[in-house]
């Protein structure tokens, strides 16, 4: 490990998140990339490779994006790992720099879901047996929530508290899809039932968007954020027989690897952006990240621990529940948010004294497997 090179995030940028049916998918990425390049002080000619995360493309989306930003001829690698596609692209970029293959690479995530899913929830892969039983993605998380309630006697309000916290945070985030919207516990609980026990306001919106980062060797420029660790764990074979509620295994393994790489303990992390596509997701994720014991995750929001003014704020941006979930772009959006938090640039949803940040993304949903993959990264201002 000793010959690994130091890796920094030189700059980040993002589009706004929301439904933009009149915008082409590339134009959202141009917004994100140009902001990230300017933030990094990087010229187009410095970019030696491009790593892209996208789930639904369309095919060739990476190359078509590059025509708008003056980058061409360099290796372009598109990665798909379900919801973790953006962070998987980021992880591979970090590895490429750490191992000396490149000294400056561009990462972006990109997704335009409003043109694909007009009925609401993402449609599950048709050949997976889950989908044929009428189980959409929210239903898959609802199964986890129901199992959690059965095992720990948790009340549905505990899940709703996560939505109140994250949407309350996102109300202050000008880039969030649900900016300005901070529902109360009653409003979350009485919203339309999507899949028992998860109501509409406990599900992330279907979004369009893009976020980007310039990752490379340090230049000594102010605002560079050091990648202390980045780890990816793919799903293992799984047939529902474990004690886990669904497939949290990849999150747990990626987290353990990231903590081991950096020597950082979970309790030392100051601010986190984690995968809260549904409220139960944040709870199970924080348990898999070892912020608390299994069965205690549901108390972290109500106790104040993960609130913006709490000991370990989680999803100060509003998370996926408020920012929206443009699948391939989500991981890079989380990276951008933590960079802004560490620099003290997050604006109205800034967390005080954030020195050490954590990003976690989970790409789930594959019959017979725990899920696609999870990435966990630890970041600190250089």
């Amino acid at each position, binding site marked *: 490990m000793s010959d690994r090179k130091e890796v920094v995030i030189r700059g980040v940028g993002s589009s706004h998140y929301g439904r933009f049916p009149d915008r082409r998918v590339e134009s959202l990425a141009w917004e994100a990339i140009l902001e990230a390049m300017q933030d990094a002080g990087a010229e187009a000619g410095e970019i030696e490779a491009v790593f892209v995360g996208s789930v639904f493309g369309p095919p060739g989306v990476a190359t078509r994006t590059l025509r708008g930003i003056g980058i061409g001829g360099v290796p372009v690698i598109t990665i798909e790992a379900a919801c973790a596609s953006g962070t998987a692209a980021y992880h591979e970029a970090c590895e490429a720099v750490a191992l000396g293959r490149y000294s400056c690479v561009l990462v972006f995530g990109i997704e335009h879901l409003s043109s694909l899913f007009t009925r*609401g929830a993402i449609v599950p892969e048709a*050949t997976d047996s889950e989908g044929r039983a*009428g189980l959409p993605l929210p239903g898959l998380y609802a199964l986890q929530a129901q199992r959690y309630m059965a095992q720990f006697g948790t009340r549905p309000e505990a899940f709703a508290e996560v939505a109140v916290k994250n949407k309350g945070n996102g109300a202050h985030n000008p880039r969030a899809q649900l900016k300005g919207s901070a529902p109360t516990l009653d409003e979350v609980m009485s919203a339309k*039932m*999507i*899949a028992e026990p998860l109501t509409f306001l406990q599900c992330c919106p279907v979004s369009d968007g893009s976020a980007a980062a310039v990752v490379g060797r340090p230049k000594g420029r102010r605002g560079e954020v050091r990648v202390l660790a980045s780890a990816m764990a793919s799903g293992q*074979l799984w047939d*529902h027989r474990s004690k886990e509620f669904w497939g949290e295994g990849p999150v747990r393994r990626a987290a353990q690897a990231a903590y081991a790489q950096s020597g950082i303990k979970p309790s030392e992390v100051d601010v986190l952006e984690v995968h809260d596509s549904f409220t139960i997701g944040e709870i199970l994720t924080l348990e898999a990240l070892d912020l608390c014991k299994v069965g205690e995750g549901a108390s972290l929001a109500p106790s104040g621990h993960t609130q913006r003014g709490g000991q370990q704020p989680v999803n100060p941006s509003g998370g996926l529940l408020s920012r929206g979930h443009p699948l391939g772009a989500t991981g890079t959006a989380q990276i951008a948010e933590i960079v802004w938090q560490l620099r003290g640039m997050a604006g109205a949803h800034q967390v005080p004294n954030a020195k050490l940040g954590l990003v976690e993304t989970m790409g789930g949903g594959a019959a*017979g497997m725990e899920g696609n993959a999870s990435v966990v990264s630890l970041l600190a201002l250089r």
Partner: protein
Amino acid sequence: MTQTPDAPTPPPKPTRIAPIIQHDAKFFWDASDKEEFLGEKCGDCQQFRFPPRPMCPHCHSLKREEVKLSGYGTVHGWTIPRHPPPFGFKEAPIVIIVELQEGTRMVSNLVGVAYEDVKQDMEVEVFFEPTMGNHKVPVFRPRSKKA
């Protein structure tokens, strides 16, 4: 042929969408069409697996056996996806993770019981519901009698 006024009305056409039959699971769906509930187990370590696939996830053996399953199990987890209405269902179906007597778990539907009355570890048994295209798929209902 003339129709008499008291001729029985045909059953409503099924709206449930047919399974997508992949090569490795063809035996499973072919059996379902005949209202037989088959599973796959390893020819070496004898452990069951679902969904069907070429290699044993436990011992990596390529020997596979198709075996008749009891059709009995218990409810491990459940939900009801109310909105948007899942395609192919007139009413929101109860979706369960069922733990089969053989030890495997699978995602299926539970019918013949109100959502509020579903209980942890409730005993269920398989039966078959018709789909479009003249296929049948295994679903579960509360177990009628003890074996």
